């Protein structure tokens, strides 16, 4: 966050304003006007410190006292907000309850965010919006937090690209570990077998023995592809599918059955389509 300057300036402004507000506290009528102004200004302010919030709250409470009991919700809500803000990270769930109660289901007030408001009812709305804005502002102020949102994704992106050297290292490590693991497994296996009192027959390099030395019978395995091709060759010698009359008849019957089932299927389908009013060419 490189906008410390901005922050400072904003804070200065705010102080001035709140001071002003205090001065005008004396006069009831004027104060109302000032409060309106302040609310508007608050809209623009996006970063706020704890201290200021408290001060604000006090102001609001005062204002509410003056305004009477028209807005019962407001002070309560404000209080809660103040409390919860102290819990630092909560932020989002803040104030929503009050917001819901007041705002009801109408969407129009939301849209009027920055418009002038002359109605009394309207006076409460900018505040709500302001809260919404503050709500957003909260994310900015917690920008250091990398556990969620844009910053998290950026961090993840960077972590996923550690650079070629590091990546090579990781892979080398994995391969070494992997090979070690394989080696170890083999050793263990051999050891286990050896314990049973059997000798391990070590594979010898050289020509594969495919015939038994005594009988001369072919032993070793045959490649599966070769075996399969030989099998299919054999199959060809079998009798064709339409050699016997029985076979032909059976095939014919099967065909008719297939057509019959297709026919039934079609009929059902057309019934469905017609029921849905889709079987019309117009």
């Amino acid at each position, binding site marked *: 966050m490189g906008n410390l300057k901005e922050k400072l300036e904003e804070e200065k402004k705010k102080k001035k304003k709140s001071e002003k507000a205090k001065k005008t506290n004396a006069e009831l009528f004027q104060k109302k006007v000032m409060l309106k102004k302040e609310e508007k200004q608050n809209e623009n302010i996006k970063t706020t410190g704890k201290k200021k919030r408290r001060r604000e709250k006090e102001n609001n409470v005062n204002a509410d006292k003056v305004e009477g009991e028209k807005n019962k919700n407001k002070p309560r809500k404000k209080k809660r907000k103040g409390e919860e803000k102290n819990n630092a990270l909560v932020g989002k769930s803040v104030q929503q309850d009050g917001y819901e109660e007041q705002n009801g289901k109408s969407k129009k007030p939301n849209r009027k965010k920055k418009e002038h408001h002359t109605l009394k009812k309207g006076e409460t709305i900018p505040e709500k919006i302001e809260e919404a804005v503050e709500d957003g502002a909260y994310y900015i102020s917690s920008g250091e937090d990398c556990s*969620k949102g844009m910053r998290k*994704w*950026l961090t993840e992106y960077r972590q996923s690209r550690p650079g070629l050297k590091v990546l090579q290292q990781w892979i080398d490590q994995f391969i070494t570990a992997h090979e070690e693991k394989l080696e170890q497994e083999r050793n263990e296996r051999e050891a286990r077998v050896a314990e049973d009192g059997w000798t391990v027959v070590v594979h010898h390099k050289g020509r594969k023995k495919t015939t038994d030395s005594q009988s001369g019978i072919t032993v070793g395995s045959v490649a599966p592809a070769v075996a399969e091709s030989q099998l299919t060759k054999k199959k060809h010698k079998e009798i064709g599918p339409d050699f016997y009359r029985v076979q032909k008849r059976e095939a014919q019957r099967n065909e008719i059955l297939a057509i019959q089932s297709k026919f039934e299927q079609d009929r059902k389908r057309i019934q469905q389509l017609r029921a849905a009013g889709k079987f019309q*060419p117009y």
Partner: protein
Amino acid sequence: MDVDTLMEPMDLKVSELLKEVQVDYSPALTELVDDTVSAIKEAINQIPEGIEVTVDEAPGFVKDIGADKVEFKFKKPKSVEIGGSYSMKCIAKPDINVDLFIQLPKECFHEKDYLNYRYHAKRFLYLCILKKFLKSSSLVHKVEWSSFHNEARKPVLLVYPARKVVEFPGLFVRVIPTAKFLFNVAKLDMKRNNIRALNQEGNTPLPTPRYNSSMLEDMFLEDNTEFLKKTFLGWRELREALILLKVWAQQRSSIYAHDCLNEFLIAVILSYLATYEKVNNSMKPLQIFRVTMDFIASSKSWSQGLYFWQQREVKVSKEERLLYKETFPVVICDSYAHLNLAFRMKSNGFLELQDEAALALKCLEKSGDVAFEDIFMTKIDFSSKFDYCIRLNLKGNSKVCASGFCLDDECWRLYEQKVHNILSQGLSDRAKFIRVIWRNFHSDCDMENGLSTLDTEPLLIGISVSSLEKAFRVVDIGPNADNKEEALKFRKFWGEKAELRRFRDGKIAESTVWESEQWAKHLILKIIEYVLLQHLSLSKTNILQVVDQLDFSLLHGVEDPMSFSASLLAAFELLSKRLRCIEDIPLKVSSVQPLDPAFRFTSVFPPRPHPLASEKGHVPKLRKLISSCIQPLEVMIQLEGSGNWPMDEVAIEKTKSAFLLKIGESDIVKRVPFVDKKLFVRGQHSSMINGLQGIYQMYGPVVRLAKRWVASHLFSDCLVEEAVELLVAHLFVKPLPFTAPCSRIAGFLRFLRLLADYDWTFSPLVVDINNDLTPIDKKEIYDNFTPSRKGHEENAQNISPSMFLATSYDKASEAWTRFAPNSLELKRLVAYARSSANLLTRLVLEDQTGPLKWECLFRTPLSNYDAVILLHAGRLPYPQRLLFPSNSNQGRLVVHGNASKAFQPFMLPGDLRGNSEELKHKLMVNFDPLMSYVADLQKEFNTFKLWYDSLGGDAIGLTWETKKRGRDEAGEGEDPIKVLKGVGEVGKGFVRSVYFLKAPRLMK
């Protein structure tokens, strides 16, 4: 019905279709018709005999058709009789109407009233009187003017009965006057001139064959209907075939028009085939249909003309035949041999008809019953059939009727012909078909006041491109310069566009040169606009061409990113060459294959060269905004075979990465997160589509529009890009009943209709790109498909995949649509496609649509979701791809957030300092916050489904997943607002606002 009688696969469907469209003559119908007819008769009886009828009944009409003596004394009609298809029992829904012939009495006409439009004027005045009295009848709801086959000089009356019957909505009776025995037939011979105004020049009088035919038609209307009735009434199959033909024609608006086919002519052609025993009693309706199509498409008889015989001989001499042939493009002479029944048919309409019939035959050749849908159930209107549609707004254009409304032909028909001639000369062999149709009648025509209001509807032009090579030809070579006469004609036609050029072979010739942006391909648009403006007195705003209206969705700013494809391919070539040359790796690279759609011209946004990615390594000056994100393109590398690969899956991945690292020392780095099978399928798909794209130039642009549409309606998660490519491929490899589309809008419309109309539940879509699927393959596909629909009986939603897309490399539809769309998503997709298709059709065919309407095809309504998340457009990786910034005015705002400052999609001026190496580090490859956000949301929540646009939308729709009863009791109680807050939280710095629209529906 018995199976044995229905061995032909289409027969069942055809017989069901007939049941659907035929009208049975129930008492309800006959009663209604009889009542209405007798009400009409009643009204006629009330007209006092012998009242004077004068011009004052309809001065405008009489003046406009130019008749002179029109007064007569009213007499009752000689007869009132039901005719037309109702009398032949051949009505096809939805057009349920009854023709009523009213025979005009001879007493009202003079012997010479065939001259100078007197007959037409009197005929109209007679109807005016009828109308007056019909209107006062309490049994008649309303009376309207209409025309007889769009012929303005021959209006007819539509009478709507006051009593409404639910089964027959909109039934009306057409009152058609006939002129039996009114005139001497010899006077109406084709060679004769009967409009004196036409021969003022003093030369030999011009014959008026169309005017004469118009009267002859009325004179023999009853006889001809009687003749047809005789043929049809005793022959059920022939009647059914007629109805099938009507259905076929009704689906094709380009041939079911005044200058081509109508119900009457279909019946005439069928009865011709019956008379000449080309069809016989043993044939089924579908067989008759097939014979008729074959006859229309390829019979040699058309070149001589069709002549009915009487007692086995034709009474037309050779000279007369020649004369008929010279006068009319198509000749169907009635059995009385006085009249060419097809005198309205134009040659371009007939060519179109033959082509459609040939296409129908092609459909019938296909195995199985697919042809049924293509022939009878698919709508083939102007917008989907023609590659280019143009509307001319001619309202109030005085040039149309400059020399009078009605000459031998009517001015609107002459204008159609003129426009057609201009376009066919201008486009020459670029166009296969040019159709010009101007429908003049609308329901509230006020005929009494004249014909000047008949130009309110726009004139519609449809153009089919012959081939894209011809369509995009830049230079048209005209006649040699030596050929003075031809050259002069050429110059006259082309005006200042014509220029004399010397060609490479030394020839010097007149020519025209047309230039167009390489990727836009709208060259035809320029030609059409030029010739129309050159020859018709029109302003540019009255020519509405449907060509480039959707291009905006594919542009980056003002340019189409497709224009960088050449450099993209060059870069790929270079890369693959280098990869194959790398020596110092254990296994050499044996092949390099592109996987990304950008390499096959089907990517909506192929990347453009990044200014910082040049090899020279210099830092460019800041002219434009430089994107900070780079879109990677995937390439598949195949290594030499080796037996030393590890068996363990993780180990394979790691070894692959090691190889890539080794390769990367010389070039690039990429992680390969795919299993081999997926990679293989993608490779297959890529090469297949690449091949297809090479054959059909329009394939790429149509795919791009389709992909953009899918994404902009937030379906990115439901339909993957490859599936869209296959759907569009299907339009090109199996275009019937159309031909392959040659323009992006026609192709896009057909894509939408395919999505909307295909029977996804009961049929697999087999996309046979290389046309190499054997019957065994197809059987395998169906065998895979059938079990996937087993569950449908119990639960309609229980089918997976709901969209079965089979190809030669993926016969079980596992590659692209296995998990998405599910049946609910597909339902939504289909509904959206349908409404978009309807909107697009309207935009093409109708006027009065503002510029905003075209955009609506890509602007998705945000009200159809339970909640909407709006994002900060400025934090999207490519903000320039956002079509419309979204704003929700629905629901209530529950979360509001600010944009993070940690990420900018563009390089800031400050970032550009430093050397290029540092700069390159700042670039982010494949960073997409939207996808990260979606992934995070899907990880953290399972109570809702997300709808988003991966191409660059700033809105995400959210719908609650309805839960089954009993399960997840805890989850049900969750407060939706709370969930949405959580949703906003996860997208911190990216989410602009979240709107809540609807609470989850709890199923109890």
